[in-house]
């Protein structure tokens, strides 16, 4: 019951944030140089089309009225049309989401699981040589520009060794269904996932290291040791269980960062996801897509943070107040 109320409360909190995002978007369009209708309609649009656009977005109305219409339009899921293809932006974006989810999700899983394991392991010996070395290494890892790492992986594994495919998600003309199809996708995922997971791994090693060692310094851990639990139990039931909380939160908060990495990685590996769409939109200056992607990504991150908060509340009895 209290959890439900908490969920309700958090959902309510999202609303103003979402509104602000849309307002920022609106302001950006209006502050950008050039006629808004041209921006929305494309430069070679004919006057009739421009007029439709002006009417649809109410561009001849007072500023606040415009803002209101814009809000209504966006919140009803209408993000306009792509300049290049004339397709509704929302559809274009939704088409690409599964591929991005596959890539980002797998990388996240690899990074989070491996990173938490390594971070927890080194948290057992804070200040040791191994700890310093791995911590330093993990900082170095997340300082790597992910697109560059991707290039290096391509250079080594695809160009030099010719071991792995360097781009795309499927073999053209390869199997389109069944196990073969799945294997094919997995095979194409190796390099992009490696690139993305490597960078995130650094993040997670560090996060896990910091939060686990912070938890291990808590007195309830000492209580656990005094009770006589073996160190393995201490690590799981006390250390990891409590350290997971901040990890989960950070997961939600850093989703924006993760998406950034995903976009850049998709660009390098021609992964047909959202990032690729955005990249192509940038090449084509297809502003409606870029804006739509920004708003949708913001909403995604907000929802993710909402979900992690709720998850947190479910994991941590202290939150439900």
């Amino acid at each position, binding site marked *: 019951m209290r959890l439900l109320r908490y969920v309700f409360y958090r959902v309510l909190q999202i609303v103003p944030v979402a509104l602000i995002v849309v307002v920022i978007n609106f302001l950006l369009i209006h502050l950008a140089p050039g006629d808004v209708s041209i921006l929305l309609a494309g430069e070679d649009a004919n006057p009739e089309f421009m007029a439709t656009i002006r009417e649809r977005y109410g561009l001849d109305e007072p500023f606040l009225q415009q803002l209101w219409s814009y809000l209504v339009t966006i919140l009803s899921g209408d993000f306009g049309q792509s300049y290049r293809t004339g397709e509704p932006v929302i559809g274009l974006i939704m088409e690409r989401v599964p591929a991005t989810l596959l890539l980002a999700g797998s990388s996240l899983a690899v990074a989070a699981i491996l990173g938490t394991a390594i971070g927890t392991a080194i948290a057992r010996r804070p200040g040791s040589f191994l700890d310093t070395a791995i911590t330093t290494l993990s900082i170095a890892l997340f300082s790597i520009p992910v697109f560059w790492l991707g290039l290096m992986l391509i250079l080594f594994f695809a*160009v030099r060794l010719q071991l792995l495919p360097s781009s795309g998600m499927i073999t*053209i003309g390869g*199997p389109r269904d069944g196990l073969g199809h799945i294997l094919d996708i997995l095979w194409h995922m190796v390099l992009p996932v490696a690139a993305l997971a490597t960078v995130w791994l650094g993040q997670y090693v560090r996060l896990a290291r910091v939060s686990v060692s912070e938890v291990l310094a808590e007195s309830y851990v000492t209580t656990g040791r005094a009770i006589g639990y073996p160190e393995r139990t201490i690590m799981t039931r006390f250390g990891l269980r409590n350290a997971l909380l901040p990890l989960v939160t950070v997961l939600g908060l850093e989703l924006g960062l993760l998406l950034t990495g995903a976009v850049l990685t998709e660009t390098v590996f021609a992964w047909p996801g959202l990032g690729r769409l955005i990249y192509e939109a940038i090449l084509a200056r297809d502003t409606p897509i870029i804006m739509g992607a920004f708003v949708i990504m913001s909403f995604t991150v907000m929802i993710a943070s909402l979900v992690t908060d709720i998850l947190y509340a479910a994991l941590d009895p202290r939150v439900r107040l």
Partner: protein
Amino acid sequence: MNFGRLLLTAAVALAPAVAVADVTLVVPQLDEPRTLSPDPAADTGAYAATSNIYSHLVVMDWGVVAGTPAYGDLAESWDISEDGSVYTFHLHPDAKWHDGEPLTSEDVKFTFDRIREKKYPYSAFLSGVKTIETPDDDTVVITLDKPNMAFVPMMAQAAGWTGKIYPKHIWESEEGFDTGPAVNNPIGSGPFKFVRWDKGVAVELEANEDYFRGPPKIDRLIFRPMPDANVARAEFDAGQFPHLPYDYAPPLAEAPALEADPSITVTYTPSHYSRDIQLNTQREPLNNLKVREAIATGIDREMISILGFSGTWKPAMHANVDTQTQWINRDVSFPEYDKEKAEAMLDEAGYPRGDGGWRFALSVTGPSYSDCRAINEVLVQQLRDIGIDAKLEAFDQSTWYQRMQQRNFDISCYFTRYGPDPDAYREHFGTGGQRNFMGYSNPEFDELGARAVTLTNVDERKKLYAEMQAMLVRDMPYINLVNEQKMSLSRAGWAGFPLMESGYNKSVTWFGYYAVTPPAE
């Protein structure tokens, strides 16, 4: 061991029962189509697919460099009246629409009338048409208001992009070629039929077994939008597709290594294009001839050739390209590179070096082709060397094209076409010419061009075109830089790609894949 190959082996081993596997040809292309109806507006992403779906009246392919200005597509043959003003086209009697309807002269007339009525881009090539008559189902008679020697070659050359023949029975009820269900579900009469278009992924076509020239050797033709040359290259290396079109040519410095590879065929195709720069003659300070001359003097073509093309694209000093041996005027040349002189000329033109050593600022843009990008990089540096604060401005293809049309540029890399008929000069440099973005307007030039196209005597035409070339070098609305030479790659065993000699006069258009044959088993 390559995993893909492993899979393939496995698939082959597991499926001996399947008699003959479909031959699929995947072709990468730079842009995603906007629509699949290319006639109403420029749409670089749509040309390749639609050129294989639709037929044209007359066409042309890279065979032009071997001397064929045009050949028939739907037209089996054509007759030209004595005075050169009445063209009678005899259509292929077996031509059929993909929905089974017969293709008749009415369809051609319908299409051309609508193009002219709606002023679609192709109307530029039909501007001299007085009447279109259809005495019978297989005959189209086009009467021009005055003789035009370039009529067929120009129609043929433009057919690569627009001038598709649309089925009357489908489109009659529509406003134009941009409305209705057939826009993105095209029904043509070409060698391939439309199957589906996965937006952002691929346009898929299949062989038209009823094609009037006989079914193609390819069962499935897929166009994949791939803006990134690296990706295309990687996929080609990975064996994902057998042909790497010239758009994606790897850096020319890699050519020696590629040529040494027995599994790859490297094809070089000279063309009737150059790479040059168009100067916006209506903008300060490029409206000043002295400035344009100085810029021409400040450009080191050899360096451009070396840095941009490993020296394989030869400098172009005249207002034509080397393949047009018949028409080129070698007596007039753009100025030789001389940095000091260029600087002096700019000083003289009233643009001495000022703050920070700059004379004036301008932007350099161009299409997204890698050759133009390379040229621009070098060009900007060379302009900066003579004190012009040049900056790069990059856009995607269609945005760039829009900006050119709006004459919203200073200097742009361009690809002037000199064939298949020299009448092309008018399109580029004539007042109001379709590709005259420079704002160049010279009545004398226009007059010569208009006269030259009506002359049936080749020597007389030659003289006029030589004169026009002299004017271009004199007025310098553009500066020729290098001769284009396409490089394309294909997997050994594959033949009939439009840039290969085996594809000449068979591939249908520049984008046609009708002539392609897979390797023998």
